[in-house]
């Protein structure tokens, strides 16, 4: 249990073929066998899955410097953003000063190599997964998944507070009819009990601060946010799932799934499954590049509805997809949970995906 491997993306991206493959394989850490992990005695006991299975949504709040409260766009502005790819103030406001501040910390190496690398990344081959499908493997013993060699740009970094802000989560695109929906953790869109909707969310597929081009296919601004009422009202980790519906954007002014593809969604399966996890944990490379962890997720506890695995993915990995049956070739699979928590022994947990998660996904699709 808890057996997992993990590695970071190479400096390059998945489209870089041999270089990426070689670098990524070389970087693979030996599988870390964590000892049997005790079921946690929570100081704050989580409830069993709440009876409230419904979700709520909000237009994604935006707050610009000088705004005293969340900003409301006019219908004309919303229309314009759909054409132009979002509010420049959210997508780029922080860039200059933030990047200046960040530069000395992670000075890249060979500038020419990075430049070439960045250029090679700029090829657009959207891939679309099949529609969300239910998992049917509940009784099968999971197989140990193959190592991740493809850091799919279907996954990315979800900035909170504008592009390259110091607050972030992880997220991935899922295939829905609108082709605009991201799945992430509930606490990445709403503060939970006593909290509010989070502001200025920007999704950056395949974000990599070690490349000259940090956003290989551009940025997607949040249009609306959605999460379970059970998360909003009770901070129930069993329902720590969030959705972000996005404006068209990116380097081609297309929807997010048309740009980077979308994973399927698996639900009503078992809590134990082979999993490949992607995200931007700040305790690995400062959250500057995508990391992956893979292994077999096990049942968290009889007291909750969650899965767990010892990835030691710290702050920033939240919302990253827990992908079942991940295919390195296509960079796609079925999202079956999302990163929710980490504890002091490096155990990560994610909520169980049941029919209510499918309902929330369909509702998020309808938010557009």
């Amino acid at each position, binding site marked *: 249990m808890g057996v997992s491997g993990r590695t970071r993306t190479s400096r390059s991206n998945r489209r870089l073929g041999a270089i990426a493959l070689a670098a990524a394989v070389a970087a693979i850490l030996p599988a870390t066998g964590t000892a049997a992990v005790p079921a946690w005695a929570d100081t704050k006991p989580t409830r069993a899955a709440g009876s409230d299975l419904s979700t709520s949504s909000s237009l994604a709040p935006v707050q610009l410097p000088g705004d005293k409260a969340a900003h409301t766009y006019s219908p004309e502005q919303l229309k314009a953003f759909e054409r132009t790819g979002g509010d420049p103030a959210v997508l780029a406001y922080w860039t200059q000063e933030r990047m200046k501040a960040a530069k000395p910390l992670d000075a890249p190496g060979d500038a020419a190599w990075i430049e070439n690398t960045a250029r090679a990344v700029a090829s657009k081959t959207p891939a679309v997964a099949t529609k969300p499908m239910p998992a049917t493997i509940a009784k099968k013993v999971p197989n140990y998944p193959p190592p991740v060699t493809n850091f799919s740009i279907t996954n990315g970094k979800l900035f909170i507070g504008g592009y390259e802000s110091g607050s972030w989560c992880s997220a991935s695109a899922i295939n829905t009819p609108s082709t605009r929906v991201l799945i992430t953790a509930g606490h990445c869109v709403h*503060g939970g009990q006593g909290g509010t909707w989070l502001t200025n969310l920007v999704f950056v597929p395949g974000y990599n601060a070690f490349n000259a081009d940090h956003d290989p296919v551009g940025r997607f601004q949040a249009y609306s946010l959605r999460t379970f009422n059970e998360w909003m009202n009770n901070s129930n980790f069993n329902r720590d799932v969030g959705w972000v519906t996005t404006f068209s954007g990116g380097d081609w002014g297309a929807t997010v799934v048309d740009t980077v593809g979308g994973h399927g969604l698996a639900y009503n399966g078992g809590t134990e499954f082979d999993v490949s996890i992607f995200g931007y944990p700040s305790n690995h490379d400062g959250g500057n590049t995508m990391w992956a962890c893979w292994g077999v997720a096990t049942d968290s506890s009889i007291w909750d509805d969650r899965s767990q695995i010892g990835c030691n993915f710290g702050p920033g990995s939240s919302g990253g997809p827990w992908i079942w049956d991940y295919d390195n070739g296509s960079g796609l699979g079925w999202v079956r949970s999302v990163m929710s928590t980490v504890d002091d022994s490096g155990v990560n947990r994610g909520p169980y995906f049941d029919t209510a998660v499918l309902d929330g996904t369909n509702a998020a699709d309808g938010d557009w």
Partner: protein
Amino acid sequence: MPTRQSPRLAVLLLVGVMVALSACGPAAESSSDDDTTATPAPNASPSPGTLPVRNDLVNPQVVPWRTWRAVDNRTLEVTVTAGPIDCYGAEPEVAESEAAVRVRVRVGLLPDAAGKECPAIAQESVVLVRLAAPLDTRKVEHLT
């Protein structure tokens, strides 16, 4: 810069959204909106929190600070990324010379976060750094 919002505001926003989207948006959650109204005043502020300064953090790691400002002539406030402030704390280190104040910050789990689960979100927070002498015109730099 996110600032504090009342839950009431969030509810108003939500209601506004639902009015605006009544043709195509989700319209079936009015009862749960009432639940939201009944929640207590915010205890998790979306504005940058202040990391508790401790010297007994679990597994502290150096994290690069991003920006700084002087709160007063003997106190700096630097921004760092960490986990939620009820799980994580900071341990600043200062080296002062005549020309410069050099600051390094370590971030780690609070001792009482042991055995507790923390949402794995990365949040920009601030750390207060006390100076031994007034800052005056000295430069503020990263201590490496």
